């Protein structure tokens, strides 16, 4: 009843090509942003911000990056954790070795280094694909894990191998309390989500999708496979690297290579699958889902009064995730994002579907 585009005529190309062509969508997004920027910092508790919202935002950023590679360009990657690690360690090294460098620039430089590594490990994608590419990205994962564990230069010869960041400031403002950290991360996520959304609906994104759907046909109509694939690897690893730097700097504070191991890569891949391959919105849904399921699994037995050990919950979590992955692949390969758009379609017709 309320969600109708009747009477919203588009008179310019500009208005026809907006990200959200329907007025109600635009209002919804503005309200969402207002809630995220104003209401949540005022009302959210410390635990809610630190334990749920900050991880959710950073992981959705990483999922957006991975979705560009897997969902839009069709190149499967099991090495996302490695690119996050490169981002985090590169940013940290800039902080240690160039003390004058501002925080935002450090994090962006982390992204730049992740891009370089991503492109190097993306080169095999020009010759191989599918399963074999998955193995190539696994190689990246194991190599990077090893490098940060065994090469002391990267951790500035820290004896324990784990690194920690000092008190953070950005543009002269402190980034220390939960609210400040949350707002800092939120700014990054909003800006990068906007950039990603615009990239995937522009020329570059269309090239990626053409490569994904059929690379031979794409090459025939004049899309360069080398350029399309390597840009997908570059953009994806840049975003993932920035997310990694944020994960290390803002969420963890001090970390060791284990924070970015293979399980992180799988977790991100699950987010992308559950959220929806080839959808920026879906990355957020997937991240929310994966962050919330363990929280729910921890609290539901407590409400029901079932005494479950931490180990048991951990194993049940594994089973639930595994079953959900298979369920989504079979029932709804396009993930939560597809359910969302189906719901919107239904809402347009409601309450008179015929």
């Amino acid at each position: 009843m309320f969600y109708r585009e009747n009477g919203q005529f588009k008179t310019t190309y500009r208005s026809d090509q907006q990200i959200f062509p329907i007025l109600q969508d635009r209002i919804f997004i503005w309200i969402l942003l207002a809630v995220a920027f104003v209401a949540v910092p005022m009302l959210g508790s410390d635990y809610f911000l630190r334990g749920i919202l900050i991880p959710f935002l950073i992981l959705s950023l990483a999922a957006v990056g991975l979705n560009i590679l897997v969902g839009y360009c069709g190149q499967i990657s099991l090495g996302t954790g490695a690119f996050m690690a490169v981002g985090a360690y590169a940013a940290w090294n800039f902080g240690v070795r160039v003390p004058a460098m501002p925080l935002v620039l450090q994090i962006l430089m982390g992204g730049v280094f992740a891009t370089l590594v991503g492109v190097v490990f993306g080169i095999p994608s020009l010759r191989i694909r599918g399963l074999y590419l998955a193995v190539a990205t696994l190689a990246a994962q194991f190599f990077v894990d090893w490098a940060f564990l065994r090469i002391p230069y990267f951790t500035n010869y820290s004896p324990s191998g784990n690194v920690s960041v000092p008190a953070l400031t950005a543009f002269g403002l402190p980034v220390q309390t939960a609210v400040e950290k949350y707002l800092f991360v939120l700014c990054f996520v909003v800006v990068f989500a906007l950039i990603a959304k615009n990239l995937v609906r522009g020329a570059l994104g269309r090239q990626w999708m053409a490569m994904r759907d059929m690379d031979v046909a794409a090459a025939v109509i004049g899309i360069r496979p080398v350029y399309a694939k390597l840009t997908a690897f570059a953009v994806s690893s840049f975003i993932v690297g920035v997310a990694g730097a944020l994960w290390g700097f803002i969420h963890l504070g001090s970390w060791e290579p284990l924070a970015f191991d293979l399980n992180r890569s799988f977790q991100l891949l699950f987010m992308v699958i559950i959220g929806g391959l080839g959808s920026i919105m879906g990355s957020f849904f997937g991240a929310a889902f994966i962050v919330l399921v363990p929280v729910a699994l921890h609290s539901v037995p407590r409400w029901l009064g079932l005494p479950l050990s931490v180990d048991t919950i951990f194993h049940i979590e594994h089973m639930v995730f595994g079953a959900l992955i298979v369920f989504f692949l079979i029932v709804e390969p396009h993930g939560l994002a597809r359910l969302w758009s189906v719901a919107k379609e239904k809402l347009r017709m409601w309450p008179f579907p015929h």
Partner: protein
Amino acid sequence: MAFFLETLFGGLMSGMLYALIGLGFVLIFKASGVFNFAQGAMVLVAALAMARFSVWIPQWLGFESLLLANILAFIVAAAMMFLLAWLIERLVLRHLVNQEATTLLMATLGISYFLDGLGQFSFGSSVYSINVGMPKEPWFILENMFEGGILVSLEDLTAALVAALLVAALALFFQYTGTGRALRAVADDHQAAQSVGIPLNRIWVVVWCVAGLCALVAGIIWGSKFGVQFTLATAALRALPVVILGGLTSIPGAIIGGLIIGVGEKLSEVYLGPFVGGGIEIWFAYVLALVFLLFRPQGLFGEKIIDRV
């Protein structure tokens, strides 16, 4: 020289173990085009079942014979793997026929998470041991050629023999039985096999059963060597480069790939490791396989892939 030979032997033996896990990958890939990421989880579940049942069954039935306990546990564990194979085919693969290879890969990733959780949920997650009476004492050979001889672990040697026997049995099964012939037909061409009346679904169940059996044997051998715990599941990740190197569709490829990777890992760790900080055997196999892929994407013995980029 003696040290080099010792390292070489060690590499060959661990290569056999990799090959054992690699076999499971190859069998399933050949017959159904599914790259089974869950092979590691299957090894873990099988080993956990074996370790636990060999303790539980004597308790339930009230006898003490180790041999009988092991045999019964093996039978129960094998039955469990068969049931698992049937369930996977029934609940997952049947619904994903004709999907892209990457979709199937992700589905098996989901299965592997599920099995990891299920195995540890039902059998517990501490470290268990499997005692099937493998010889533990070291054995020295060629003592008259080198001073002190060369140390060969009898346990490794037994494991390698078992692996070789398993491969031989599989080869016979594929070559001389009706089901084996059907399996080869399905591997060659799904549609042609179906059109001459071979039931695809049954074949898939059979092949997952065989892979489950491979997982059980691999689980027992790895488990009795290193103990049964969660890290067993990551053994499959170590065996992945093996099948990439040997070719995803070739059984001899899995064996020879396993031997190459095993030897390469050990030699690189011993001779190259000290220069770069050690621990390189984690990624050495992957990088070896990766470099190999660039020049020969189908692996050593694999069928030529037409859909190269």
